[in-house]
């Protein structure tokens, strides 16, 4: 009977296999982190391959890096960091039981994620295509690159695969955020229950962290200071 009383005091989202809401929340966070560890290893394989090939063909990778549009890379970094902030604030809005704030911050997160993808696909990749920098789609090795030119397409394979994989994660996150937006609109989240927001937030921040490493690895460490090498 005492157990019954305890269970009645729990919010309706409480699952009976847990001791209390705190344990339920911690189990959810733990599970999400285990998934994110598999994601770390997933991206880790690509990062590992990048490190190896960069060490083998450093001059080619530096030429390729300088051909990327650093303005877009930096702008997108700022946009993604801002979307992480709004994601974190949507959880804060659930903490303080403000439905409209949750909806607003989730919408802002989706908007910023959408701008990131729009800049990446509609401007950056399109410009790369026009400059014949997409391997397999009319890539032109410039004679200016000299002997190192033969492995510049290798750099661009990594660039498109890594940013493409990252963009795919963002598209998936965008879809999940759309579901959360509807749930938040219906008032599903409150200070006792916001597990979907928390888990999605962890995923979104993880995708942000991947970009935090992609930005310097792809755009910056090729030596931007080389005269005539920038864009």
């Amino acid at each position, binding site marked *: 009977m005492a157990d019954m009383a305890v269970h009645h005091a729990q919010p309706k989202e409480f699952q009976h296999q847990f001791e209390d809401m705190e344990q339920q929340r911690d189990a959810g966070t733990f599970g999400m982190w285990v998934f994110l560890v598999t994601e*770390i290893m997933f991206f880790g394989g690509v990062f590992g391959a990048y490190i190896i090939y960069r060490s083998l063909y450093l001059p080619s990778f530096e030429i390729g890096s300088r051909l990327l549009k650093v303005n877009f890379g930096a702008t997108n970094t700022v946009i993604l960091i801002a979307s992480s902030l709004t994601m974190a604030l949507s959880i804060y809005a659930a903490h303080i039981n403000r439905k409209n704030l949750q909806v607003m911050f989730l919408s802002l997160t989706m908007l910023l994620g959408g701008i990131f993808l729009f800049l990446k696909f509609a401007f950056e990749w399109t410009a790369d295509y026009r400059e014949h920098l997409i391997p397999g789609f009319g890539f032109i090795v410039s004679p200016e690159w000299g002997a190192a030119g033969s492995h510049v397409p290798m750099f661009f394979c990594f660039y498109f695969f890594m940013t493409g994989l990252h963009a795919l994660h963002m598209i998936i996150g965008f879809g999940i955020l759309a579901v959360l937006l509807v749930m938040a609109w219906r008032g599903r989240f409150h200070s006792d229950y916001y597990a979907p927001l928390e888990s999605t*937030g962890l995923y979104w*921040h993880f995708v942000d962290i991947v970009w935090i490493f992609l930005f310097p690895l792809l755009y*910056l460490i090729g*030596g931007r200071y080389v005269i005539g090498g920038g864009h």
Partner: protein
Amino acid sequence: MSEQVVPVKTYVGVFVALLLLTGLTTGVAFIDLGSELNTIVALTIAVIKALLVILFFMHVKYSGGLTKMVIVAGFFFLALLIAFTLADELTRGWSPQVHGWGALIPVVHGWF
């Protein structure tokens, strides 16, 4: 534990720090510190930014030991993956000339 409400000013502070670090890393890329030092600076800033996101945006600072252990284990295995792959790739030029057991014969003769 995860129940703790992180104040808005913490989030905004972390956000401003991340913006400043993004500006710093972009700016430094245009200054010639030598290829190696440029790489080290860029990656150090990236690690600091990732730590800020993990600790504050992902609430790990306020999480329990189990969550922290999982994260450390994840990055530990990532380090193993990269370190062992590099240990193979970067040492391939080190292979000594192999002479087989026959190379030991003069040495062994010297003992008698």
